[in-house]
């Protein structure tokens, strides 16, 4: 195999796929990237057997061929190279010769025969969507997914279509995020549950991409195809919990605060927070403010107030402030609305003027 391309191209592709391959003790070949130069293109393939990615590398193919090379070594090399000259990759016996203007390297090759092929999803109709929509939706909820493996259904992001909206949901059963994105095409997405670890890779692989992708959802597998990237992931063949039932429809107290002020207050609260990240949030209707109280036996105690527009009665609630911090990062609006139903019931967060997003936090018991 012999190919020539620019350093920038190689770096771009490697950065996208780098995290997919990991140290795999059971099958060492998966630590590699498989490069296949054929016809006019070179395809880089990586997989960890949970997700698989193929990215087309823009190259000039001088000689066709197929090689497997350790991805982390390759990543270290390319990230250390600078400039915008061209790079030539050429097989020489059992090594890969990488030459640039200034460097000349020989990297050991791995046996590529054992590198698995990626499954193609056949049983499903393709759905066309702008990739930005998908990334945007996933990003606004994925931090809420559970990280434990006990219940795979909720260690996932759930995506389904309702009318002309695509709905993204994630929950770890302590909080829940839901984002609705309006889509132009009548894309019919049956509920699909994608493990959050896999969808994180998807976000990385497609970040910076634009344009439409074609999504095929099978029974156990899903694939996303763009011009230059093929992504495939295992999906959970199960039921997502019926979360809509638990979203409160009424409230006794509505509070609106400026997001920036809340973020600043939370930063202070964080200094004093205990091991459980617990804060006490009290709403004072008369004074028009909310107070956050946190205490750590080793550090001390803190009361911080934020001005607020309060409608309804005074209420006090214990919350995990990390859950608050998480959501504030993904809210685009200037102000945030809290809706409380009861001390022991979940509280709802929304961006003011943004009906597309909803966040639910369960209180802490004390």
């Amino acid at each position: 195999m012999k190919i020539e391309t620019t350093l920038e191209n190689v770096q771009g592709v490697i950065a996208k796929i780098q995290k997919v391959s990991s140290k795999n003790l059971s099958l060492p070949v998966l630590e590699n990237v498989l490069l296949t130069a054929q016809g006019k293109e070179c395809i880089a393939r990586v997989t960890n057997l949970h997700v698989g990615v193929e990215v087309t590398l823009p190259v000039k193919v001088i000689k066709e061929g197929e090689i497997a090379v350790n991805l982390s070594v390759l990543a270290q090399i390319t990230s250390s190279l600078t400039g915008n000259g061209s790079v030539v990759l050429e097989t020489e016996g059992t090594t890969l010769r990488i030459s640039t203007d200034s460097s000349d390297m020989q990297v050991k090759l791995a046996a590529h025969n054992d590198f698995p092929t990626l499954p193609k999803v056949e049983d499903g109709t393709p759905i066309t969507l702008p990739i930005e929509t998908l990334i945007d939706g996933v990003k606004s909820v994925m931090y809420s997914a559970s990280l434990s493996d006990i219940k795979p259904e909720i260690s996932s992001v759930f995506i389904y279509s309702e009318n002309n909206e695509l709905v993204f949901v994630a929950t770890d059963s302590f909080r829940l995020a839901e984002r609705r994105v309006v889509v132009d095409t009548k894309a019919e997405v049956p509920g699909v549950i994608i493990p959050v670890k896999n969808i994180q890779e998807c976000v990385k692989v497609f970040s910076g991409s634009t344009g439409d992708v074609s999504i095929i959802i099978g029974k156990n597998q899903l694939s996303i195809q763009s011009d230059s990237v093929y992504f495939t992931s295992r999906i959970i063949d199960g039921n997502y919990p019926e979360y809509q039932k638990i979203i409160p429809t009424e409230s006794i107290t509505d509070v609106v605060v400026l997001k920036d002020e809340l973020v600043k207050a939370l930063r202070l609260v964080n200094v004093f927070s205990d091991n459980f990240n617990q804060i006490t949030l009290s709403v004072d209707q008369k004074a028009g403010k909310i107070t956050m109280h946190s205490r750590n036996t080793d550090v001390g105690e803190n009361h911080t107030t934020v001005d607020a527009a309060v409608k309804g009665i005074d209420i006090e609630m214990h919350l995990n402030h990390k859950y608050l911090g998480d959501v504030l990062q993904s809210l685009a609006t200037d102000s945030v609305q809290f809706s409380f139903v009861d001390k022991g019931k979940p509280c709802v967060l929304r961006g003011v003027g943004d009906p597309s997003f909803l966040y639910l936090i369960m209180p802490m018991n004390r």
Partner: protein
Amino acid sequence: MSTAENTWKTVLTEVELEISRPNFNTWFKKTFAIKQDDGIFYVGVPNEFNKEWLHTKFNDMILEKLSSLDPTITSVDYLVKKSGVTETPEVTNKKSSQRVVGQSEVLPLENIEVDKSSNLNTRYSFNSFVVGPFNELAYSAAQAIIKKPGVYNPLFIYGATGLGKTHLIQATGNKIQKDNEHLSVFYTSSEKFSQDYVNALKNNRINLFKNKYRGYDVLIMDDIQFFSGKEKLQEELFHLFNILYDKGKQIIFSSDKHPNYIVGLEDRLRSRFSAGMIVDVTKPDYESRAALLKTKATQQKIPLSDEVVDFLATNLEGNIRELEGILNAIGIQTDLRGRKVSVHEVKMLIKNNVKPKKHLAIEEIVKMIAEFYSLEPGKIYDKTRKKEIVYVRQIVMYILREYFNISYPAIGKEIGGRDHTTVIHSYEKVQEHLKDDPNLQQEIDQLRAILDV
């Protein structure tokens, strides 16, 4: 062990010798034989990646080995399946009792244990189902259906809340599905069905909705009393019923009342329900309650002394759900104390957990009975001798005497100032009728369910 499993085991042993250990562990370790059918050998694999690679890389090798063992095998197919051993995490009752302080409360998310295609909750099985005189008829009807779907069509099970209707019909569905993999079984509550219908209407997908429900081999619909008064839905159900019925598909309904007493149910539906088998589940008797308690306690690993079982079975006449509630409370107490709870402690517990026995005022009872027969409650007290009112009035008196232990003179005084001999006469008359009128018996049972006596 089936022959397919043996064959596959031999293949695996041979493969293990030929390929490297990492390759074997990654690609073969989690595979298993499903079946051999018509020359095709089906292998279960954990995921699509595995399937793809076995297919592209190892297919020839596998096929060669298989056909050398059994020449009738001509091809191999790989199916992504969860392995035969279902991994159900051990649920201990510790979980519920240990509430860590400083932990967030958990959102009440449900539905995860539900099977995706059939919508049945796998938790419901006959293993945990206690049969007693109160439900044995319903149980045997369900068993008959499992043996031969369609034999009683529809099967209609009714009874008050918390007596195990849902458990019974879900377990029936699970069993049918397990015995007949090719049948498509579907469970739905009537609420879900109506939601589905409304959504279908809203999104212009009514045909999809129809096709979906008409394609099932076994349809189980829970709590159909919610259809009462919803004409459009009843019409949809009527058509669906006819189509499934004509095709000989099994239909199972549950409801809290006999179809004849579901208010606002169209006659044509009612008569169709009656075409099959209608059975009821009543409240469990003492022996059944004791058996229930013992079974549930063993399942949840709650140590329970015989005295406690006896005490609970005697004193809790409520429904099964209530029994389970008490049992959970006892479980938590047992955990906390680290020993069996005594009868005395159980008594204290019950105080807080059991809703007090209903003390209904006589007017209340009269009102409920009158409403059951769609009569003005005032008419019962009147002097009128209209036949249908006299009939209801007699039933009122009978029920007050029989189930509320009110004296004859007191009843007479309350019900329009009548003489106690009139009450005695009424009581005896109803008692007489009960002997040869099954309809009356059913009405009384219904009323008892409503009045919770």
